[in-house]
């Protein structure tokens, strides 16, 4: 099931910068930057969509998609991911998130969504004007 995670801007990042950062750092959980191969195509986990009129940005995809954490957990740096999602997220929740990621080799993305996240369905996204043209 395709869903939209609405990414808001923060004083530190624009919505686009946050979306790109979260998306990229999610991928870094699977393969650290130091281990990345030359010419590697995969750089993120989900598609990014920009609202045609409001400029909002969303991550779009199946949030049941399983993220495979890098086999050597000690090489995984979660700090950058936390820096992108920490706005409006409590420290307790961030600590729990970090602990979960470091101790779980494979997990669906929805398990690490912060409680304050705004997730909408594909149909709602259409109604909210995320697409220039209606679904036929």
């Amino acid at each position: 099931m395709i869903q939209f995670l609405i990414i808001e801007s923060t004083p530190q990042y624009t919505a686009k910068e946050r979306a790109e950062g979260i998306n990229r750092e999610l991928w870094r959980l699977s393969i650290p930057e130091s281990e990345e191969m030359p010419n590697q195509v995969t750089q993120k986990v989900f598609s990014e969509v920009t609202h045609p009129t409001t400029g909002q940005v969303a991550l779009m995809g199946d949030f049941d998609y399983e993220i495979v954490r890098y086999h050597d957990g000690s090489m995984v740096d979660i700090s950058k991911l936390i820096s992108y999602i920490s706005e409006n997220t409590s420290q307790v929740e961030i600590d729990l998130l970090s602990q979960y990621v470091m101790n779980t080799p494979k997990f669906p993305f929805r398990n690490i969504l912060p409680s304050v996240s705004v997730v909408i369905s594909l149909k709602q996204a259409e109604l909210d004007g995320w697409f220039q043209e209606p679904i036929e």
Partner: protein
Amino acid sequence: MRNYADKLLQEVFDALDGSITYGGDPVPVFTSVGMAKDEPYYVLIDSTEGGDWGPVDRFGFDGSLTLQVVTKFDDGYSSRKPVENIADQVYNLLAPEVNSVIDLSPTFSMTVWELENSYIDVSLVQTEKAVRCIIRFHYYIEEVIGAKQLSLLLSQAFTTAATSTGAVSLSVAFAQAFVTSAIQTGAWELSTSLSQSFTTTATASGGTSLSLGLVQSFTTTADGTRGIPLSAALSQSFTTTATSTGLHELSMSASQAFTTTATATGAFALSMAASQSYTTTATATVGSSLLIDTYTGAALAYSFRRLATAITDVARVRETGGNTEQDFSETEINDGTLTTFTGSNDGATTKMYQQADSPVYGDMIQSSSSAQPLIVSAGSLNTVNSKGAAKFNGSSQYLIDDSVGGVANLTGKDFTMYVVFRSQSTVGNNGVLNEVRNIQDSARTVVYSDTRTSSFLLSNDGLDGTARLSNFSSQQPTSTNRQFTLVKDGSNFYAYAEGVLIDSHTPVALTGTDTFFEIGRQKVGLVYFGGHFCEVLIYPTVHSPATRAAIEANQISYWGV
């Protein structure tokens, strides 16, 4: 030449001895006159005389056998009656029927045996002390040198070879039956020496497809029936090969029957020497012979097979265990290299390389891991016609041109597009190829199928439906390999399914501004393709019917449409 006389005399003696009587007493039979000097009545198997004739393998004897029937009288008065009685018995016992009493087999064969004289009237000599009757039989005896030998020397070579060099994929299916038999009926020896070799070879390397279907039967029979010298020397070679030189696929179906039969019936010699050869050769040599090498000028070409000799790797795949990526050629996709790379994990398609010789697009890529179509699922290669092809999930997976703006180079131009895919009935059926805005004046979407309307849209502006090719409703591809061609020629579109025109259409004006190309998604986030995608080519020109037919045939053949 063998001695037949002793055998003949023995056979006659055996036929007569103990079988002749006179007045209740046995009449002895002798082969030497010395043994009969004291007997009042006797039969003397006197002599044989005659000549030989014929070639070495059919040596014969023509002669006479003489018998005497003798009766002796001491009182000076003789009678013909005893001799006539005994002579009749002899004649009846040696009735002139060939081989009925005198059997000279297996070394000789008596073909004539007949009474040569009138023994009672002419050949009877009477004196006061004896009456003597001469009985002569004429005979014809054949010595059959080699007649009891049936020799078969069969040397048979059977070779089927299919060789391809270059970018060729070769598929060979051979069903071959090979039977050699030698049958002998009767009293003759049969010697069979069979030397047989049978080889089937199929070799393929490269990227063109070579298909051989051979059904071959090979039978050699030698049959000798009683008394016949049969000599068969058969030298047989049978070769089938398939070769293709040039640009196209080679398909060869050969049904070949080869039969050599030697049969002898009757009393004569049969000599047969057969030298037979049968050769079919086909060879595929692919150098500069791939599809785009032949049909140049492609603006877009993405495929999981090699379309141009300038291209080696056709796709890049990520294994979902350790998330490493690697490029793969067509051969490596299909020969197990790819599945060795993925192990039991999925193989996600991160890139399809642009193979066009005049590209206005870049490679098709997907940098988001969750949106990458799978060419390997849990260690198993996803295939169409047994060839690797990526499978899209119908909900989130697609590939996108990574050269933003490239599509604009085709704005307003005529074009010919060829696409092969296999929709999955249970998922999506949507958005095979999308967002080719500005390629044509009106079409928003080039190819996609729409489950909601149960129609398959090859050209649609995506808004008012006026550009739909309505006849596609009958072309809904579910779990079926399909090949479609779309031609924009001036103000008309022509749609072909597997080479057959299924609709034509006058497009409406295009208002869209997108400048990217996608495979597997109709438009952002909405309508996705579910099924296997094989390949697509776009030429910025209108192909002739002959060229279109050739490319369609190539796609249909390779992908098993």
